[in-house]
């Protein structure tokens, strides 16, 4: 099935980037009518019935999250949009913020109205400075038009929106580290409970949602929650942006109807990845951003039971972490047989070692230890026992840390070794063959049959 363009309908239209242009495309009209005719509760209900799941990685039902908001508290409530997007392989939020800034602002207005936030924030990844400027300009335009600020759209409701840049740390995408950063402190994740819905920004009830999640809200209200739930295959409702990269002919951001596109089609169709970029066979796929388990090609296109996999939360998760993976944030990268999986894992491990905030001992020490072991394996100086030790370390990190970064560092290690153990053993057995850093390009490591 071809792309189903909803969020990205106007992504390639330069008109969408200015307020005037966005209005010519029909923008803001609907927001005005929502503010004047709907109640916050009715918006909440629509979001609940839409089945929208958080697009930031965990896939948590958005309506359910909103319902956790502490409504008894007399403190102000906040909505924070997570635009930190630092997961390797994920670059879809950038697409929205850069090309459709007013679409995100509409989402922020409607969602904030539903939640009861009078001042909301968009936290933008530090490396996305140019995007920060784009958003600032769009917000200025919206203030000038009376769509933000006092008595917006003449609805009697006051609403402020600010953007805040990160300083270049992956960990600041974790919602509580993000809140620490927003409050001006070092971005260490907080100990939960309490969860942000009870005590978040400045100790007030707070909802943190991904850019893509928030951008979807106005569409849900426009068509109705039930209609939105009719898109995709329940419980994977709606459309999802996939950032596709790697050894494919057509890397880019694609919008799919969840559950309607098979993994095979996604890799090979001209509507999506367009097959291999240099004629070599695909070997492995990381389906949902660097943190999710890697799968060998055969397990990506078909489950262990031989059922063709579809691009949906459930289908990709089929088989658990033994033979399945997760849709995660939708950062899909494809590797052909020139990729050395040891080198690939080492590269990921370096990232997690660098990005660990260092607060809790399993992640701080474990990520560094794993990285050192992988560096030496890749250099041909490893031992066979290092391979099992890596798995052991990953098991000791997984589930025992403050925030999921520990798990995110552990899963790739466990899955690379589970599915590509022969490559790790090859590095120990034939150190002379892997001295050349491009060793896998000339002669791919054979997979035992």
């Amino acid at each position, binding site marked *: 099935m071809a792309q189903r363009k909803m969020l990205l309908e106007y992504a390639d239209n330069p008109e969408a980037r200015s307020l005037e242009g966005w209005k010519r495309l029909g923008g803001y009209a609907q927001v005005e009518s929502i503010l004047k005719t709907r109640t916050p509760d009715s918006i909440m209900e629509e979001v609940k019935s839409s089945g929208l799941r958080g697009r930031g990685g965990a896939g948590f039902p958005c309506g359910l999250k909103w319902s956790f908001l502490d409504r008894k508290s007399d403190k102000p409530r906040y909505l924070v949009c997570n635009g930190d997007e630092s997961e390797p392989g994920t670059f879809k939020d950038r697409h929205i913020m850069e090309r459709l800034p007013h679409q995100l602002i509409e989402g922020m207005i409607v969602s904030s109205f539903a939640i009861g936030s009078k001042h909301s924030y968009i936290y933008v990844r530090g490396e996305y400075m140019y995007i920060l400027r784009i958003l600032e300009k769009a917000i200025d335009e919206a203030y000038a038009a009376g769509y933000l600020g006092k008595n917006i759209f003449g609805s009697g409701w006051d609403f402020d929106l600010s953007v805040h840049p990160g300083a270049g740390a992956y960990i600041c995408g974790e919602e509580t580290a993000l809140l620490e950063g927003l409050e001006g402190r070092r971005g260490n994740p907080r100990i939960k409970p309490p969860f942000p819905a009870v005590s978040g920004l400045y100790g007030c009830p707070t909802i943190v949602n991904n850019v893509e999640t928030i951008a979807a809200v106005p569409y849900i209200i426009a068509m109705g929650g039930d209609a939105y739930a009719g898109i995709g295959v329940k419980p994977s409702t709606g459309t999802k942006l996939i950032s596709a990269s790697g050894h494919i002919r057509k890397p880019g951001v694609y919008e799919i109807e969840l559950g309607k596109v098979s993994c095979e089609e996604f890799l090979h169709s001209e509507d999506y990845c367009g097959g291999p970029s240099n004629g070599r066979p695909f070997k492995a796929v990381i389906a949902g951003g660097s943190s999710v388990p890697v799968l060998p090609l055969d397990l990506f296109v078909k489950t262990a039971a031989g059922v063709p996999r579809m691009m949906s939360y459930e289908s990709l998760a089929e088989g658990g972490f033994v033979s399945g993976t997760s849709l995660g944030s939708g950062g899909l990268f494809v590797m052909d047989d020139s990729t050395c999986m040891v080198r690939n894992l080492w590269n990921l491990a370096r990232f997690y070692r660098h990005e660990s905030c*260092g607060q*809790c*001992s399993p992640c701080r*020490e474990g*990520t*560094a230890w794993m990285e050192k072991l992988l560096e030496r394996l890749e250099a041909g100086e490893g031992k066979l026992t290092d391979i099992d*030790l890596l798995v052991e370390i990953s098991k*000791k990190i997984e589930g*025992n840390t403050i925030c999921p970064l520990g798990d995110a560092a552990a899963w790739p290690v466990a899955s690379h070794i589970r599915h590509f153990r022969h490559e790790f053993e090859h590095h120990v057995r034939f150190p002379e063959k892997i001295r050349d850093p491009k060793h896998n390009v000339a002669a791919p490591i054979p997979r035992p049959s």
Partner: protein
Amino acid sequence: MPKVTIDGHEIEVDAGTSILNAARKIGGALVPPTMCYYSKLKGSGGKCRTCLVKVVAQSAANPRPMPKLQASCSTPVADGMVVQNLTSPEVLDARKGIVEFLLLNHPLDCPICDQAGECDLQDLAYVHGLSASRNDFPRRTFETIDIGERIELNRNRCILCYRCVYTANQVAGARVHGVLGRGDHAEIGTYIRSSLDSEMSGNVIDVCPVGALTDKTARFESRVWFLKPMDVHCTCDKCSGKAVAWMRGEQVVRVTARRDAYGEVEGWICDSCRFERKDKAAWTFEAPRRVERNSVIGQNHYTGLRQLLAVTEKHIAARAAVSAADEAAGGATGYGADPAALISG
């Protein structure tokens, strides 16, 4: 008031109490070990993960287990909650992993470390650790930084528990002490290397679970187990003046705050009391200080790796025996009635 069951012991505690504090209320061996939580420091806890426990039933209303192990210091109890600490092999296994992580880059220079004998990491490794490390990489080291005349900072020994950071912020009141960098390159530093300069700065020594922060005025003077701890007090206008003087004969070798069974200070003391009052006449002596002997040195047997539960049981028995001996001697000394009995036992 919620009722919670920990390793088979039931207790009623105030709502909002953490599992750890509920366990402390029961007391004994089922209390999870802590390396970062400190009841007197706001925000502490959650970081070291040594206090992980298994919640097998979340509450009476929701009797399902929690999927992950929970940090007992930062997880509140609920009515009907059932928790396993020593009775869960999963917990003991995870804790073994945590000890390995904490020791991964620890220099193990105990023979030349002033903290030896009263070090929480030694105790933890002894009860919960492996006998050998599987790490064969060089250990991480930091260059030495000088944080002043009175406090020695050795960051190679630091386990990043953040206690000193909270102490500097909350007790010493000067925000010049903090964590810089991230991941395994995170380090304790003093901003712009300015020394900790406050009347209460010495308290960071007492909160440090390892030998990363030690007292320069007592450095290398004596092994702690050769000193006799005495409860003392003085009239001080900066703190309560209640302290422990560690004596060698008539000489006050070092002064610390009074610490409870969990190693936490009972009250903060000021730098004048700690670093300057080294004259016996400056203090009024109350009685010998009773020190919990759960340390490696106190136990006095290094027998290598054993089955964890066996070790734990032995640990409990040894502790009971020493307390009994101590009781018989009227709780006279810090280290039990007869050191010889300890060595042979």
